[in-house]
């Protein structure tokens, strides 16, 4: 992997972070294939608490697979994947569910439940994960989540009545309602106009500041990456091909990396 930063003490810092419990995601030699197709070849990555990591890469390079591995939707073939101090591949189903409670996932299209209203969409994870929530608490949590994303008036609407931007915001609200430690965003601004994209990017940033979440964001939107990222990695052929800050990568001498920023 080409490190675009000139940080010679990075290994020492990683070890310090691990000891201080600041490392939330750790991947070592991660591999995943589907049949004969090797999607993730050798991923090595450490993500610290409160960090906003943006993943760039051409379509089909395994970006979505990578974040699905983190939440346990896709099982890794080889390598070590440690989330919040627990090795995912060694966990039993119940333990995996406990880890999932601490991870939020914003799907590309929002993945809203069409057969439920906005309110029911937000109540669903609450009922599932907190089990016995008093009606009043649930109501206030739902209202708070909607206010956070500026959708307070949409509470009784159906997902089909919402615009693309509103669907993304609602997806975000549904994910945030449980205040997860790690947020995974799968192309949060895809298909949106530049103004709404900017609004969503600001929202992601606000969320990160408010709840001190660790965010992993897959995007093709360079403006979004510039605004959000503390660190960017570029995936190519199933490995992390480059890593660094926005400025580092933008000023890279590599023409292929440069092409993302043109």
């Amino acid at each position, binding site marked *: 992997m080409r490190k675009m930063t000139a940080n010679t003490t990075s290994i020492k810092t990683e070890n310090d972070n691990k000891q201080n419990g600041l490392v939330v995601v750790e991947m070592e030699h991660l591999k995943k294939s589907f049949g004969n*197709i*090797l999607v993730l070849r050798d991923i090595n990555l450490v993500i610290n608490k409160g960090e906003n990591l943006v993943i760039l890469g051409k379509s089909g390079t*395994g970006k979505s697979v990578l974040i*699905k591995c983190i939440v346990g939707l*896709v099982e890794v073939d080889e390598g070590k994947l440690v989330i919040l101090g627990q090795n995912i591949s060694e966990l039993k189903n119940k333990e995996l569910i406990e880890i999932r409670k601490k991870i939020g996932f914003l*799907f590309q299209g929002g*993945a809203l439940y069409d057969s439920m209203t906005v309110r029911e969409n937000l109540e*669903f994870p609450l009922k599932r*994960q907190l089990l016995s929530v008093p009606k009043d608490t649930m109501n206030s949590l739902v209202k708070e989540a909607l206010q956070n994303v500026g959708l307070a008036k949409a509470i009784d609407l159906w997902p089909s009545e919402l615009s693309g931007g509103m669907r993304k915001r609602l997806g975000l609200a549904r994910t945030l309602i449980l205040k997860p430690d790690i947020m995974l965003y799968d192309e949060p601004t895809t298909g949106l106009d530049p103004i709404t994209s900017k609004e969503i990017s600001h929202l992601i940033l606000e969320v990160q500041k408010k709840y001190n979440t660790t965010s992993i964001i897959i995007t093709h939107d360079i403006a979004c990456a510039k605004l959000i990222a503390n660190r960017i990695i570029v995936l190519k052929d199933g490995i992390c091909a480059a890593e660094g800050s926005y400025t580092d990568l933008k000023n890279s001498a590599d023409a292929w990396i440069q092409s993302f920023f043109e």
Partner: protein
Amino acid sequence: MENVISQQSPNEHQEAETIPESFSENIPDSLFNKFFLEVYSLTIFTLRFFKEVFKPPYEFNELMKQSFLIGYRSLPLVAITGFIIGLVLTIQSRPTLAKFGAESWLPAMVAVSIIREIGPVITSLIFAGKVGSGIGAELASMNVTEQIDAMQVSCTNPFKYLVVTRVLSATLMLPLLVIFSDTIGLLGSFVGVNLKGNVSTYLFFSQIFQSLEFNDLFPAFIKTFFFGFAIGLIGSYKGYNSNTGTEGVGKAANSAVVFASLMVFIIDMIAVQVTSFFQN
């Protein structure tokens, strides 16, 4: 050589129900093999249903909701078709019976036909068209839009929440719909009889009840549970394991109806054989 190419990842929930690639990739892609691979995959899916159905937590609220949607919402369609079948069967049978001077047998003949065979089979086919395709399309659409994955991330077992509830609802609701359809069918027959005659309600229904036996009612009722189970299961299987993309939604809905209808006839054939074995 390592092969790194663009690839949409299959979902984890699908991997469990479909055939492992290492197993299927070595099998030639003929229609015959495809059929057996499909049977294998459906068997795994069915076994998972029986494994999950008895395991807590039970999705009682969703079961009630689905029973309402699947059962109650099908009442108008089932009522209309039941009434027409009773009426048409009566009108069509009258001339033939009249030739042999057996017009008085009309209520009994129509009742036995409707209750033993036509009612359950026609209602099940209508049910397969409405509910089977509905389940297939709904689950396939949820699959395409990642709603099933979202459910899994929300710590919900999507198989239990979506599949088990729908299969159970279809299994429990179809027998009730068939009873309802048979009753409406007999009313249709009563109207048909009185179009060209004057038969009192009492006479009509007393003739029906005199002609019906336990052996007419019981097997016909029991087989509808199997019809409902097959329709719910196939609809869910096709939807849950659909390919990604909008094309997958259409295919899932279409193949759910085709296979569910076929299964209704196959189960009916088996039921007839089993019934006649015990009657003899």
